[in-house]
């Protein structure tokens, strides 16, 4: 192993806020160790250097919203060995997918005085709508410890240990008081993917679903419970139409309350 070259890491950005890739720089205790394991070969947020044209591991942040990006993502796929999407933008389309429910022309003219100059697609779509990906990490933003786990799993040729149960289970594991049962606070925890460590309930707040839907969520049952707490259809639409509005389960549930 001694003289093998270090695996090359690249970080790619599409429509996003940069928060997910910042998570890597926020790994203050692990950053230098990670940097020792890989060669940071293309990470513009952190470095001017660009090394080589192909990368063993690519992290992709952001969603596809322009014709140019819809082409660029294929180039990234071709240049990458393992490709991992990081965050809600990349895995579901992100908050910018709220345009998917509206007329994008109207949106453009609200923000820009000369909308004819704006080249943008009607929809904000996740990376998986365009290419095949090797692993998807949820969260808006992702959990940096999960990122380190996924990276070290791939560097060591094992499967990442990322549980796919709900935020609700994380609460139980943590011993949080259930905000829905104890305070009648509407919470998306039962249908939301684990990963954050149940932050919101620990702060007396209902989960707003920033980690996206868990596997096979029963959103209809949760909506029914929310209604019992006095939440009307309009607010249910808004609740499911957040940072993962375009994720299948959340999109369908929001549409069910729009009729």
């Amino acid at each position, binding site marked *: 192993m001694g003289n093998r070259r270090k695996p090359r890491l690249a970080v790619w950005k599409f429509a996003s806020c940069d928060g997910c890739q910042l998570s890597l720089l926020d790994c203050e205790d692990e950053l230098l160790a990670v940097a020792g394991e890989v060669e940071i070969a293309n990470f513009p947020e952190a470095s001017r250097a660009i090394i080589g044209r192909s990368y063993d591991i690519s992290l992709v942040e952001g969603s596809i919203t322009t014709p140019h990006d819809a082409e660029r993502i294929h180039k990234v796929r071709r240049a990458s060995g393992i490709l991992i999407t990081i965050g809600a933008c990349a895995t579901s389309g992100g908050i910018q997918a709220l*345009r998917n429910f509206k007329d994008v022309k109207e949106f453009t003219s*609200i923000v820009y005085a000369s909308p004819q100059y704006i080249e943008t697609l009607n929809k904000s779509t996740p990376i998986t709508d365009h290419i095949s990906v090797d692993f998807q990490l949820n969260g808006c933003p992702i959990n940096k410890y999960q990122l380190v786990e996924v990276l070290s799993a791939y560097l060591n040729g094992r499967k990442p240990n990322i549980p796919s149960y709900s935020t609700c289970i994380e609460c139980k594991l943590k011993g949080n008081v259930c905000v829905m049962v104890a305070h009648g606070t509407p919470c998306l925890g039962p249908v939301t993917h684990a990963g954050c460590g149940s932050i919101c309930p620990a702060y007396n707040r209902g989960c707003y679903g920033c980690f996206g839907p868990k596997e096979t969520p029963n959103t209809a049952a949760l909506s029914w419970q929310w209604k019992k707490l006095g939440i009307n259809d309009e607010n249910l639409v808004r609740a499911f139409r957040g940072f993962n509005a375009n994720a299948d389960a959340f999109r369908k549930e929001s549409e069910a309350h729009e009729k």
Partner: protein
Amino acid sequence: MKSRTIKVDYLARVEGEGGLFVKIKNRTVVDVIFNIFEPPRFFEAFLRGRNFTEAPDITARICGICPVAYQMSSVHAMEYALGVKVDGQLRALRRLLYCGEWIESHILHIYLLHAPDFLGYEDAIRMAKDYPDAVKNALRLKKIGNELMILLGGREIHPINVKVGGFYKVPAKKELENHLDDLKWARDAAIDTVKLVSTFNFPDFEQDYEFVALRHPDEYPLCEGRLVSNKGVDIPIPDYEKHFEERHVEHSTSLHSVIRARGAYHVGPLARYNLNFDRLPQSAQQAARDVKLATPCNNPFKSIIVRAVETVFACEEAIRIINEYEMPEHPAIEIQPRAGVGYGCSEAPRGTLYHRYRIDDKGKITDAKIVPPTSQNQKIIESDLWEFVQKNMALSNEKLTWLCEQAVRNYDPCISCSCHFLKLHIERE
């Protein structure tokens, strides 16, 4: 006729996607474009129809580097519209959270993004091989800022604990006191940082800027005050749009903010420092004096020293707030929706961030406007490049290109923020 172009397609060590283009003809700069090619994400559009309570969580997602700035500007604007004022310990906790973001963001920029330029490294990781202690201290400092955000916000990126009216949950005094030792270490490390970065080589470059920042009667500004400048602006926040506007400049792909009366202006650490030096705590003033940092300082390359001085302030302010803290009885004040218009300005690490919202009597947002610091600095960045290249024509392309990148990084531009408001100009015949 000899023509030269300097082109950087993808500007590194800035937040988001931008490039720059400088054209030289017969030893004269004829064109400068600081390009933004971030895809638009339409925040102002999809805020319409959302509830006023959602603004801090939604607008945080404009920028992962300064989410607290978005949360602070938005809650202040909403509270203005709703006619409530958050005071006392809740107000202090907001400042404390913001101090955490300032420490994190300034240290990220100083050590990880900007110092490598001065020391000639491609990045901080390569720099760490020769300066291991400096980089390790930087990571510890950054972490201390992040830990304040984790305690008060629940997490460092897109905190979940900020709401219109206050917080969801407030910490006990003991929880805050646990951070005191770290913060004292951080303050001293920040003073050392001032010393360290002041030894860098600074290009001899000054411009006659109009600096704009908040100014508060007795504090270094974070969330409140009047908007002032060194050339005569002195207005309350709600008058912002009367004096400042965004214009589309033909050669550029983006919107530039200007002062209606005069044109380009400069926001950020240099502006705050020059306009509010007297509001800095003694230790921060002394740190600046010790390294002979001028007031006013008109050299944008020296903004790295000012960031370090502001980090001293942020640590000092955090210590003061924790010492004076008493846990408030309620984490937030109750709020009833009502129709109105609200304005908010706060000082993001990279400069003034303006929000305006109109809400209806049910609390639904009907209109939103957001002006981030980078779109306000964009015109100044271009004019710096113009002057800088003209003065340093003799340098090789390679050297000049790196220095131009560095000149852009002086502003710690946050391109992800600005793009939602900047124009992507695609010319078609």
